[in-house]
């Protein structure tokens, strides 16, 4: 203790007190205040940013859920549409088939009728032509046979004979 008191230097104490007071005043003004303010602000900023990020994440999740829902709905709608389309397609195909069949039958009928009438017409014409032709042939034959008097006589005689016979 005696040594401690002996070692105690009032001058050193005085300078230390002076330096410390000046240092505290200067540092508080020029260093600690700006540093503490900056750190506090930065921490507040970080906290805000974290909160914002959290909020954004939640929003994102909501958005994703929404997206999922919309996607689901769209998919369902698409499925329904495809199903409808398929039904319509099948119906259309079936209708077309029916129509085509009916049309075909009708056309066949018509064709058949046409063919019949054509045939009839052709037959009639053929008949007239055949009769004309026969007449011409007969005429030619007759003309030919009658050009010669003997032959005419012969024919007449044969005919007469036939007539007699009958």
């Amino acid at each position, binding site marked *: 203790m005696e040594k*401690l008191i002996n*070692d105690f230097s*009032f001058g050193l*104490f005085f300078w*230390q007190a002076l*330096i410390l007071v000046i*240092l*505290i005043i200067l540092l508080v003004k020029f260093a600690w205040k700006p540093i503490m303010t900056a*750190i506090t602000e930065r921490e507040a900023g970080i906290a805000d940013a974290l909160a914002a990020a959290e909020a954004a994440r939640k929003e994102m999740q909501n958005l994703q859920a929404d997206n999922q829902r919309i996607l689901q709905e769209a998919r369902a709608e698409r499925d329904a549409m495809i199903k409808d389309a398929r039904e319509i397609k099948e119906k259309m195909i079936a209708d077309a088939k029916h129509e085509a069949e009916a049309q075909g039958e009708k056309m066949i009928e018509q064709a058949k009728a046409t063919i019949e009438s054509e045939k009839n017409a052709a037959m009639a014409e053929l008949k007239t032509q055949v009769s004309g032709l026969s007449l011409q042939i007969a005429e030619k034959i007759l003309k030919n046979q009658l050009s010669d008097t003997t032959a005419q006589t012969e024919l007449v005689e044969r005919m007469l004979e036939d007539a007699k016979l009958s």
Partner: protein
Amino acid sequence: MVFPARLFKNTITALIAVLPLLSVANVSDDVQQEHAQTEAHAQHAEGVAHSDSHNEHEPADKKSKIKAFVDHHLQDSHYFVFFSDEETGEHYGFSLPVILIDNGLKVFSAAKFEHGEEIVEAGGEYYALYHDKIYKTDAEGTLDFDEHHHPTNAKPLDFSITKNVVAMLITAILMFLLFTGLAKSYKKGPIPTGFGRVLEPLVIFIRDEVALPNIGEKKYRKFMGYLLTVFFFILILNLIGLTPLGINVTGNIAITACLALFTYFITQFSANKEYWAHIFWMPDVPVLMKIALIPIEILGTLTKPFALMIRLYANISAGHIVVMSLIGLIFVFKNWIAGPSFFALTLFISVIEVLVAFLQAFVFTMLSALFIGMAVQEHHHEEDHDKHTEEEPIII
């Protein structure tokens, strides 16, 4: 990011590794200086009355020489000596100004003392330098000694700029530059650059681990300035003390007393009504007890800063004594086994001293915050009274 961190670590490691090596050089310088000084005293004292006691005091063998230089190292000095030549007694360094208040202000350079060899005459008074202390003397330089070899001559009020004052000024300038630099770096961006990256975690540490838990959310900002200043002031001075410059500032009782008094006054002046009520009129105890508790509580307020003062002084002084004694042992034994082993031990203790430098700065700040916290906190519950007394400092 990795490279500078590793570089920094390596630099620190290298510095720590060379620490004892450099101290060795320094110690021998101190031996030489001390030797030269005591020799000078002896020579000088031959002509004066108390030459016998003087000669007795001269370090005769190596052990007492080492003891003398350890003592010398722990003391403040009027010279900033880097090294000295034992043969010629020459000192390489610079003298610091001496400022005395003794029948007026007297300012002269310590160089006039010639390291204690000369008597300085200033304003009609004579002054002698003995073991780094200035005493009033006569024209012949007579010093009277008591039985402990302490001069009984009167001492003038010594306001000299000593080695410790220079160290403090350098520390103050360094701190001012470092922390205004850190403050400025926040203007450029939210994250500090350069050395500020090392300082900022320490600042945040003081706030989160020292100020906030002890003082409380509401009032801590008011005391941050003091706590931060004291922490870095002690820390830097502790670390400077570990350099081979041979400065021992925080191991000086005047310094620690001043620091402790600051904490004491800040505590008392910021204390609230409840704090004073607990000292002068302890609630919830019988009247007789209240009266009996008054002196105990008043004494309690004084023991806290006293413990602060002694703790820092003792820890840092002890560290210096241990390191220097271990280095001294190398010179005592002077052989191939003792040299490297004491070198290794000194290295080990030096590393511990680095830890102690941080720890003591932290403990001082922590306890200051605790005492301030006790004085400003609001007591709402009865349990707090018990807690209040149990929270006496027990950390060493």
